[in-house]
């Protein structure tokens, strides 16, 4: 791809491959607002977090006692703590499964929207929109109530089907806790995935598809050779986001924990950081885990980040 600098840029056609002299400052001016807001909002907090992760910093330090600098002690404590690795393993499993399921369902929904009659598509879109529009706190309240051990609809329906789910407590067992959490997270994230992919699909020219169909290309071939290449950037960024979000999913887990379960057996990285920081006032450890999560996320998404950077370069 050559330099494209038409919008807001000079009218004369650019010479491919070489930045235009007059436009040399333009990109910098363009990124100033974004950079400024990022530095303003995140600069100090990031520095603070990094420093704090190498200090002894608890409630006493928060109330003015000078913190002691301990270099990497917090990290050593962290990495030798088997509990932390249990949380990491749990979070990774939860994240990958949930992100995978979300992507699969979201993609199928987008294709479905693309394939069905208008009325059905609009019905689908409206119900997805409604689910998407639910504020998280409100959604969690509803879900907590749907799965309520005593008066929840879920148990009532399952019992009505002849299964023994009367007064079944879904949150007591960590496995079923995570199953419920996954269902909720998937329910909340699919609309975004489905709509984004659907928006990508609308960029696929129907003429090309129809021409391909006329030429005898099967659905799978059309998907593979026409649709996927066009929506791949969307797929990549959405998948990346799902992985990032699901790795440190917080509100859903936290509010489910409030309703039941044993916190130490259902903690994921997000709630673990929160519990260390807010619960135990161990801000140093919370910072250290945060930094570790950052590194972990980068590692997890590095393949995508690199391929995106490459794609961006080409």
């Amino acid at each position, binding site marked *: 791809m050559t330099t494209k600098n038409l919008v807001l840029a000079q009218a004369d056609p650019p010479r491919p491959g070489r930045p235009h002299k007059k436009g040399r400052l333009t990109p910098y001016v363009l990124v100033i607002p974004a950079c400024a807001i990022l530095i303003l909002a995140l600069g100090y907090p990031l520095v603070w977090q990094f420093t704090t992760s190498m200090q002894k910093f*608890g409630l006493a330090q928060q109330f003015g006692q000078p913190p002691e600098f301990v270099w990497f002690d917090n990290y050593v404590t962290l990495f030798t703590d088997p509990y932390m690795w249990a949380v990491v393993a749990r979070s990774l499993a939860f994240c990958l499964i949930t992100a995978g399921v979300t992507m699969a369902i979201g993609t199928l929904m987008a294709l479905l929207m693309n394939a069905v009659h208008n009325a059905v598509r609009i019905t689908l879109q409206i119900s997805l929109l409604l689910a998407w529009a639910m504020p998280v706190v409100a959604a969690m309240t509803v879900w907590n109530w749907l799965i309520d051990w005593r008066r929840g609809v879920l148990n009532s329906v399952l019992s009505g089907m002849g299964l023994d789910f009367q007064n079944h407590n879904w949150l007591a067992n960590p496995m079923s806790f995570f199953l419920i959490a996954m269902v909720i997270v998937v329910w909340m994230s699919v609309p975004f995935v489905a709509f984004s992919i659907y928006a990508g699909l609308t960029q696929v020219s129907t003429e090309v598809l129809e021409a391909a169909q006329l030429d005898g290309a099967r659905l799978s071939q059309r998907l593979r050779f026409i649709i996927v290449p066009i929506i791949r950037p969307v797929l990549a960024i959405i998948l990346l986001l799902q992985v990032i979000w699901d790795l440190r999913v917080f509100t859903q887990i936290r509010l489910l924990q409030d309703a039941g379960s*044993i*916190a130490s057996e259902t903690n994921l990285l997000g709630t673990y950081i929160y519990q260390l920081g*807010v619960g*135990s006032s161990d801000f140093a450890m919370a910072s250290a885990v945060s930094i570790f999560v950052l590194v972990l996320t980068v590692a997890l998404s590095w393949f995508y980040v690199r391929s995106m950077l490459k794609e961006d370069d080409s």
Partner: protein
Amino acid sequence: MKRKLASLAALATASALVLAGCSSNADRGADASADNSVKTITLWLAGSDTPDELREYLKTEFNKETGATLNIQQQDWGDLVTKLTTSLPDANNTPDVTELGNTQSSTFTNVGAFLNITDMYDELGGSKLLQSFVDAGMVGDKNYSLPYYFGSRAVFTRSDVWAAAGVEQPKTLDEFNAGVAAINAANPLNIPDFSGFYLGGQDWRNGISWIFANDGELATVKDGKWTSTLASENTLKGLEQLQQLYKSASNAPNDAKDSNQYIYLNDSDEIKDAEGAVTASTSLSAASIMAPTWAHWSIGTLGTDDAGKATRTWDDTKNAVFALPGNDGKPAPVFAGGSNIGISAKSKNPELAKSLMKIIFSKDYQTMLGTNGLGPANSDHVDSLGDDQFAKALIASASNSKLTPAAPGWATVEGSLVMEEFFNKIEASTDLKALAQEYDKKLTPMLNGE
């Protein structure tokens, strides 16, 4: 051209941000003048426990006495620790006076969040103030936070179900334990998953009453060093009784916490169709529960108030309330609810804050707390609670009530939900002592804030 566009955009952003900033911050920073009438101090109250009437009283009285304005902000219990952690150390944004849970107060007191008010202690009530709460706000022999109000826990029952099962109101703890197990076995109304005594698997706040009642302690302190004592002999006795209750008297979920247990005492069979036939089944599923004494507002027959809001009316033919009896027949020591109140060490108006404290500890205000069902901090004014059965149960159970350990790390213990986890494992445990020792090991460093 394009540079102009970009810089215009930046300028527009900046000015919009500045403008919006001004409008929402105009009322800040008005502390300079010596005249009190332009001064405002902020009081944080936790939850909605303090009724509006009392808040209005505080505002008017404070203004009358000092000329300054009192700004009351209500903070939710669930988020209070987060907010105290961020705001109290910040002189520009700290509340001047704040309420906080009595179990949280030792932690914040120990890190120096509160002003030393030892000089006011006698003036505010001195030895008349509820001692266990006063202790929770002390470091050494200095007072930092003082009791605001207390609540306590009592047993609420369905006396009709107890009668149907042929069980009398118990006189001792053993009788209680045996009685609720008998009711559970009898299940006179044939309700599925019925509990003779509904006790949530993670409900340690009610559960520790059995530890206290057997003279057990959660932790002891020696030379400033705290030790968790779950595995001590008396504590274990209480834990064994609890395990028995969980096994034979309670069908509550293993992960249920101390919340809303009173709904299981209520019928909701008033739902009828047009012919008056009952269409929905009852939701009654427990013969007894333990809850804070104010829970009586949520127990009884359903009705509507003048505003059309659903209310519950206590029905003496169906409901009863009593203090959990101890082994000696006197009320058992239960975990007291309630909160402390203190002046922020970073307050810019400590004198005004002290004036507010005087109003709060005045006879008038203490009496108002009592008439609203909140146990007044000063024992001289406890009569104001009245003498109905709820006040009696409150006073009886509070007479012997206890607090959680006043250890610097207790808030950490609560924040990391270790007690919930420990109680959760009691029922299924085959070796309570080993379980208790395991958790002693976890708790001891936490208690000492390590």
